[in-house]
């Protein structure tokens, strides 16, 4: 059944219609929502469900182009825009409507941001979540469970809202549905124009999940969209590897170069919605006898690790190669934020694995001030080079 706000017959492009509705939902949340109902978060390991179960709407704080320079007094110039822009927005007072901010431990920059935030943005309480570095050690799960319990107590103490198991199970089921829908989007990623794929996935980080699920489920049910792959002719299919969906410029450039994004290994992209854990289905987490914190811990440990984490049995390169085969990708574009060390080290190993497998790849470095001209030349030349 389509959501009530949607018509049952369509006179405009369905993809654009869904994107438009999702963007309206984001604007609505920002302008009219209860100012104390939204919770900001950064990094790829925040257990959003805990905040949702407490009655909040978790929203990822993406960077904005209108940087006012406030963060430069606290962060060095080489800091990534993810940290820099969030701090800038907070210091400029643009995040004052947030009930709080959540950060999971990933890189040194995010760790440093935690302290800077607490000293300088004290009016927006910060919830730090200690995601372990080694995901495969026997103590990782014990540690993670203790962190999740501590986070739940912290949320309850600071907000006065209870996080009961039943509510948490309900939130997990809702998020599982979002994850399942995003995975269905990605399974057909190359069918979408890259900027549309970007808009649809980015909205999953910003829209209330209840709204998101309705709109995307409706979109995926439409028989006429997206067009089949045959309609795309011989468009080169690329996978993107990097930090996140912060900037649409790369998706735009791939589209302008005549290419398609067939999937990604972005920290805040396809892997974020991955569910390679037994029983991760909309129903499984609704089981009354399961400990929802254990379910959350198992899922976080089973995700394809970001370059800031280590897991001996979960190789990012192996995952990337498998994705190349599964999506019939012609090449891989590494989109690295300039000076991002974790992705810098990761690139070397991934590039070697691709070389051995004979998969063409390109490295581009992104900065907050987009250099679309040079980026376009690089990406177009890469596309021209593909067999």
């Amino acid at each position, binding site marked *: 059944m389509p959501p009530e706000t949607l018509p049952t017959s369509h006179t405009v492009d369905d993809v654009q219609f869904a994107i438009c509705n999702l963007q309206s939902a984001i604007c609505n949340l920002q302008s009219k929502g209860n100012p104390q109902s939204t919770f900001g978060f950064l990094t790829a390991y925040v257990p959003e469900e805990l905040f949702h179960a407490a009655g909040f709407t978790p929203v990822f704080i993406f960077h904005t182009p209108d940087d006012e320079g406030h963060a430069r007094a606290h962060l060095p110039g080489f800091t990534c825009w993810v940290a820099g822009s969030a701090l800038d927005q907070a210091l400029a007072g643009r995040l004052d409507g947030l009930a709080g901010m959540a950060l999971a431990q990933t890189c040194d920059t995010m760790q440093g941001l935690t302290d800077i935030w607490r000293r300088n943005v004290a009016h927006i309480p910060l919830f730090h979540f200690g995601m372990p570095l080694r995901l495969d050690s026997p103590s990782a799960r014990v540690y993670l469970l203790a962190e999740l319990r501590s986070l739940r107590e912290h949320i309850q103490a600071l907000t006065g809202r209870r996080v009961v198991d039943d509510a948490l199970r309900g939130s997990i089921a809702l998020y599982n549905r979002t994850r399942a829908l995003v995975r269905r989007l990605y399974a057909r990623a190359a069918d979408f124009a890259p900027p549309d794929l970007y808009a649809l996935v980015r909205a999953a980080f910003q829209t209330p999940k209840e709204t998101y699920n309705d709109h995307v489920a409706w979109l995926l049910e439409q028989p006429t969209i997206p067009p089949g792959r045959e309609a795309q002719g011989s468009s080169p299919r690329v996978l993107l590897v990097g930090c996140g969906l912060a900037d649409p410029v790369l998706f735009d450039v791939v589209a302008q170069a005549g290419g398609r994004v067939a999937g990604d290994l972005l920290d805040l992209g396809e892997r974020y919605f991955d569910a390679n854990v037994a029983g991760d289905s909309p129903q499984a987490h609704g089981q009354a006898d399961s400990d929802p914190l254990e379910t959350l811990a198992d899922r976080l440990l089973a995700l394809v690790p970001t370059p800031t984490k280590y897991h001996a049995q979960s190789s990012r390169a192996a995952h990337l190669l498998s994705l190349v085969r599964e999506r019939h990708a012609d090449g891989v574009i590494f989109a690295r934020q300039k000076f991002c060390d974790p992705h810098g080290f990761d690139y070397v190993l991934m590039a070697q694995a691709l070389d051995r497998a004979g998969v063409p790849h390109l490295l581009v*470095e992104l900065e907050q001030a987009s*250099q679309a*001209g*040079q980026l376009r*030349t*690089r990406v177009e*030349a890469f596309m*021209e*080079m593909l067999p």
Partner: protein
Amino acid sequence: MVTAGVDIGAITAKAAVFDDEGLLATALILAGYDRAAAALQVLDRALAQAGLAHEQIARLVATGYGRVQVAGADRTVTEITCHARGAHHLCPGVHTVIDIGGQDSKGIAVGAAGKVLDFVMNDKCAAGTGRFLEVMAHALEVDLVDFGQLALAAPRRARISSTCTVFAESEVITHLAAGADRGEIIAGIHGAIAARVATMVGRIPVRDRVVLTGGVAHNAGVARMLEEKLGQPITVPEHAQLAGAIGAALIARD
């Protein structure tokens, strides 16, 4: 069939016209601020030289940073692909192309028929580009045309350690203040640009035959010092600066 290629670079606009027999004409002008007008003008010049009219062009391919501003182009292709194709035509057997233009420098690994196998490109900084040489020539009050020869004539090279154009300029001023010989400073500047480009190109396989293209190819000092750094002979074809336009015209024919 008559085909044409137009290459709108950061500083110059180039055009090449081919027919089935081979290269008919070329033209080169300053690109100025109006890239669309420069594209028309440079193509007009090449056509006038060939005694042809616009209507006789069967296919036109545009390349370079201003490629999207070329009116009437049947297709746009990046300068990386075009330089590889152009260098392959000018120097058959080429395996590595080093293109140093006004705004950027590139290393291109070239396969059979001039196809790009891999490439590297400088970041947005001007070090290792023609702009670096322009800034330095201006600071030293030397005509750019003489710059390379002055570098080769110097008995020693002043040490220019910075790869940043702005910092290198302040190093040059420090050398001048210390009374260093101008020729030696010029030689040091050429050494710095060669070192920068050689480091970048080292990220792709550098295999004989190595061909230098782009406007800076006409600077003998850079070419010689690049040979030293790479330990390989470098070929500079007659139409080095036109390699992109020539490649574009050939791709139009393909």
